[in-house]
């Protein structure tokens, strides 16, 4: 319906006008110190958010009703597509995904304006300007370059539908979660830039205020990456979950920088150090989020995830350049004011571990960046496009990741300022023994690959440090309050959510790393051709092919191989590995036959089939199967869940500290010092 499309176009255009007005009103309000102008700017942002919600509703209705007069609907929906995927087509194409981006940013903007207005009102005009400027860019794209509301005079009878690979529940939630992370990085960026603009005294508080927003963005990026890995594993049929694809890398890079920031900001809180470093990390994380959007939309690098080539890429690059130059200029302007008040006291201290941790995160991010853009760089410099591919990443990233694993165990046990030999002995004895025991058990069990032994032993060491941390905290509470251990454990976590939530996240990362190591190093695969009744071995499994079956549904013909799986002598599962052939000419897809256990995954794909000569019976066809045994993959998915729980614990607002441990205040301090007197807080 052309009227609805007009309404959508108008809503986006009006939203653009409002965010531009918000920029002008906020700048003017800050300059002439007129609060009503800033209040008007806030209202303009609310109006813009409402208009974008209306635009999104128009598109959703068009998708749900399969209104093929919308070019976007015709390109991403067809009559055979289930309704739920008609709706997820909202972010299945470039134009819709840009609208989603703008909508998410509008939601974040309202939340950020509310939070900043309460916590640090002097930053409000700056935050409005930055967020509205970013929104203006996206709305300009939606208005002038990639409108989801473009229409055709004559609607086609049917649409083209989405790529069948996207018709999956994991893909329904992966993009919006990732967008929540990507777009979420705009808020800490806006807060930090606003703090730098507001003055030297605001910068420190601004960085600390940005921490919570960064944590949320990091969480969403983590979950988005996890969902994407799961989709890749169960849908694409290649047996892996991470391919070092440019668009995957584009999401990993800001995640790495955000992780570095979450660690280094702790030093700023504790020791009033690294403010400059943290400012640059926030800017870098935002820049990489825009860079990722550029990669996805420019077509400059080939990727299974990217949209088609479009002029948007150049515009994104210009926007990215402007944003980085402006942010760096304002940081340079305040550089002296950001100087740390203190310096590292000793090389062996918690602070040093955090600094090293940051260096390693940045080293991985740089390696990933270099490997990702290398084809473009080589093209520009030599005229030949050279793809470094997964081998480059597989050689460079794991050693640095092992360094991070070491620090994950060492860091929490080191003392702030300086670690003494006695405290090192006391703190590392038990975890070190745990790590050594794991290594010894693996050697005794016959494992000889040094890399995995090192990783699993280190994982044992880190797990030991985490258990030790919890145990000591519980013991301290029990000693102070005589609580039973379960009560003490719950109270300990509840009173120190950031710290113990962080340890839970570390434990989740351990599971992830063990899963990645096991499935990367010990995976086995073979390709076999079987006639009905024949069987083939794969690792500890025996797979017997029973026959071929054929079904049709929703515009697709599905050819499936019925398989019986035996684990030793025991029948473990009956599976079907299938290929889906689409009547509309789309590329065929695989339906994976998957059996997951904590020990390993049996992952089977149907490569092809050959009818028995002289037989018209499809059930008697020979099939070619790819049999993979991927050890420990389930640990990786479990690690993602544990990480999610830890992140939620760490993000929950902490109770205001009621009391803190200090000696009786000096009489001269009077009432002001009273809150500092009391029992051991957190104990």
């Amino acid at each position, binding site marked *: 319906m052309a009227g609805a499309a007009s309404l959508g176009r108008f*809503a986006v255009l009006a939203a653009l006008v409002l965010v531009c007005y918000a920029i002008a009103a906020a700048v003017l309000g800050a300059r002439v110190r007129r*609060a009503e*102008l800033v209040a*008007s700017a806030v209202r303009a942002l609310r109006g813009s958010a409402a208009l974008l919600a209306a635009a999104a509703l128009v598109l959703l209705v068009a998708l749900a009703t399969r209104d093929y007069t919308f070019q976007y609907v015709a390109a991403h929906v067809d009559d055979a597509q289930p309704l739920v995927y008609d709706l997820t087509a909202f972010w299945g194409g470039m134009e819709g995904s840009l609208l989603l981006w703008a909508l998410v940013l509008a939601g974040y903007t309202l939340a950020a304006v509310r939070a900043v207005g309460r916590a*640090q009102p002097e930053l409000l005009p700056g935050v409005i300007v930055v967020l509205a400027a970013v929104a203006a860019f996206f709305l300009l794209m939606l208005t002038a370059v990639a409108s989801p509301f473009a229409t055709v005079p004559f609607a086609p009878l049917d649409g083209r539908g989405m790529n069948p690979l996207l018709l999956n529940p994991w893909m329904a939630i992966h993009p919006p979660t990732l967008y929540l992370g990507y777009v979420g990085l705009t808020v800490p960026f806006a807060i930090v830039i606003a703090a730098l603009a507001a003055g030297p005294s605001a910068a420190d508080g601004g960085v600390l205020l940005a921490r919570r927003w960064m944590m949320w963005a990091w969480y969403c990026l983590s979950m988005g990456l996890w969902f994407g890995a799961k989709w890749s594993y169960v849908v694409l049929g290649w047996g892996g979950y991470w391919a070092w694809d440019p668009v995957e890398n584009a999401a990993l890079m800001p995640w790495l920088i955000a992780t570095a920031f979450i660690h280094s900001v702790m030093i700023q809180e504790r020791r009033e150090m690294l403010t400059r470093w943290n400012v640059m990390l926030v800017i870098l994380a935002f820049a990489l989020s825009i860079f990722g959007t550029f990669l996805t939309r420019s077509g400059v690098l080939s990727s299974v995830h990217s949209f088609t080539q479009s002029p948007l890429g150049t515009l994104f690059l210009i926007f990215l350049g402007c944003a980085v130059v402006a942010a760096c200029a304002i940081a340079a302007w305040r550089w002296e004011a950001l100087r740390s008040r203190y310096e590292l006291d000793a090389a062996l201290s918690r602070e040093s571990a955090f600094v090293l941790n940051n260096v390693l995160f940045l080293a991985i991010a740089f390696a990933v960046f270099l490997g990702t853009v290398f084809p473009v760089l080589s093209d520009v410099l030599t005229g030949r496009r050279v793809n470094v591919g997964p081998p480059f990443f597989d050689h460079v990233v794991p050693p640095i990741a092992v360094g991070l694993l070491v620090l994950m165990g060492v860091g929490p046990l080191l003392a702030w300022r300086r670690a003494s030999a006695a405290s090192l002995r006391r703190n590392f004895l038990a975890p070190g023994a745990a790590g050594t025991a794991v290594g010894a058990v693996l050697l005794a069990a016959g494992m000889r690959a040094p890399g995995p032994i090192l990783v699993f032993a280190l994982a044992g060491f880190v797990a030991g440090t985490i258990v030790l941390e919890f145990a000591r905290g519980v013991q301290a509470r029990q000693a102070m309050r005589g609580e039973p251990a379960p009560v003490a454990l719950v109270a300990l976590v509840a009173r120190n959510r950031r710290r113990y939530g962080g340890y839970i996240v570390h434990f989740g990362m351990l599971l992830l790393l063990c899963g990645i190591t096991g499935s990367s190093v010990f995976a086995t695969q073979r390709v076999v051709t079987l006639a009905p009744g024949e069987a083939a071995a794969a690792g500890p499994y025996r797979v017997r092919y029973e026959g071929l079956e054929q079904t049709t549904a929703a515009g697709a013909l599905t050819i499936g191989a019925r398989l019986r799986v035996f684990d030793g002598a025991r029948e473990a599962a009956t599976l079907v590995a299938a290929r889906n052939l689409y009547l509309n000419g789309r590329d065929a897809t695989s339906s994976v036959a998957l059996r997951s256990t904590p020990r390993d995954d049996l992952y089977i794909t149907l490569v092809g089939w050959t009818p028995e000569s002289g037989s018209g019976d499809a059930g008697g066809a020979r099939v070619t199967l790819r049999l993979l045994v991927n050890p420990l993959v389930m640990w990786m998915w479990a690690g993602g869940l544990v990480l999610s729980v830890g992140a939620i614990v760490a993000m929950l607002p902490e109770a205001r500290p*009621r009391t803190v441990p200090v000696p009786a205040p000096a009489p001269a301090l009077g009432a002001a010092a009273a809150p500092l007197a009391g029992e051991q807080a957190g104990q």
Partner: protein
Amino acid sequence: MIAAITVGLAAAAAWYVLAPLWRAAPDEPHHESVERARLVRERETALRVLRDLALDHTTGKMSDADYEALRARQEAAAIEALRRLDAVDAASGAGAAAASPPAVREP
């Protein structure tokens, strides 16, 4: 119909956005309230860091000397924030309830 909705939406948006400009000016974030928010934040941060330090010390990760030095610094920051909060509240004569320090439990 769509044109009428469009015009109506535009008018409503303009009215909503511009209304603050011809109403009585809302309270600007005065210097006192900005300063107060900053001090509250500093106080909260200092108290949380003190609590973390106490936990580190109790669990044996920090020597007595380092604990004393770091604690003294954070205490000084917290006390300074509280002292200035008192001064801001005394000057403004308002917000005493919101400004109230964390409740104290006697040891």
